[in-house]
């Protein structure tokens, strides 16, 4: 059976982590770039830290990741690990600055925000696996609010085919996301 996209992403993380452990500076830069938006989103959207506090947490999280890379053996655990490190540091920051740590209803809100961050990250990762054309066309329609006519003109595609192309690209994105949500092989009993 061919490798799934999820397995491919985990393998990519594993290779990156191995290169980081070997002291490859480019690999470290790539790892930080890959996870920087994720960490920052947890800080600012999940815990509503201001930019300054978020920056402090960001620096601290990646410092800890750098110094503890040797302790991580399972590449699949990297993302949950960095998320947990970030959440803990955000709570420390809130306590240290005497901001009220979330009350019960705020915790529920925070949890929903974190779930949104996770979802947004999953969509972003899934988008990255689509063809360049699909990524471009979805970005133009959903993010840049371009009309079918504008998309058609700029990509030199008949505008009458744009709606069906978008539908197909969304179908691929959905398949990709559903693949991610399936339990990984060998994880169950």
């Amino acid at each position, binding site marked *: 059976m061919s490798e799934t996209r999820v397995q491919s992403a985990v393998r990519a993380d594993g290779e990156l982590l191995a290169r980081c452990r070997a002291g490859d500076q480019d690999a470290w830069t790539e790892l930080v770039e890959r996870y920087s938006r994720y960490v920052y989103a947890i800080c600012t959207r999940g815990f509503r830290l201001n930019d300054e506090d978020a920056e402090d947490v960001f620096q601290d999280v990646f410092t800890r990741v750098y110094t503890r890379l040797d302790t991580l053996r399972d590449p699949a655990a990297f993302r949950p690990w960095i998320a947990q490190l970030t959440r803990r540091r955000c709570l420390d920051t809130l306590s240290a600055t005497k901001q009220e740590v979330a009350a019960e209803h705020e915790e529920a809100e925070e949890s929903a925000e974190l779930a949104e961050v996770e979802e947004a990250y999953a969509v972003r990762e899934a988008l990255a696996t689509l063809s360049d054309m699909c990524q471009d066309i979805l970005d133009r329609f959903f993010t840049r609010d371009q009309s*079918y006519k504008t998309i058609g003109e700029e990509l030199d595609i008949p505008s009458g085919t744009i709606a069906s192309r978008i*539908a197909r690209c969304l179908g691929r994105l959905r398949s990709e996301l559903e693949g991610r949500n399936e339990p990984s092989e060998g994880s169950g009993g």
Partner: protein
Amino acid sequence: MAGELHSTPAGALSVAGLLEHASGDAAPTAAGSATGIAAAMAASLVAMAADRSRASWPGAGGAVAQAATLQARCLELARTNADALAEATSALERGSDLEEPLRRTVDILLELGDTAGDIGQLAALVAEHCERAVHADAEAAALVAEGAVKAIEALVRTNLSVTPGDERLARIRRVREQSADAARRASEAT
């Protein structure tokens, strides 16, 4: 309508309230806004027809997502159109600084025309793939979208800043032709 609509979150008005605002004389009626809301209704029909065709058409989910996006764009443009019309009306009453508000109303109308045109295209696609039970809904959506584009063409043509040879008129005319073609495709699809 403009005075009410521009201060009201899109979608917050009831249909009856909307009609009352549209026919009231407290504020100038924004035909562009009313047209935008009609186009948004067409988008909701497209979404419904696609949603009910999920079992037989793999692209249905993608069509629903596009229809929802186009519907939201229409409502937002209906609101900004009302704001722009209110500004243009104030400028007309003052008798000064008229050019920019008028140009803005045309720009918004053209954007609304493009969006209504897209709804027509999407309606044609849905009509070609949807379940027979909802085909008439998709066809009706394409016709409403075509009507919206025609109405917008008329509004652009009568705007004081638009001259007969204006490229903006040519632009909305092309969208109208495409919308007519989309409506034809929708009705011919079985």
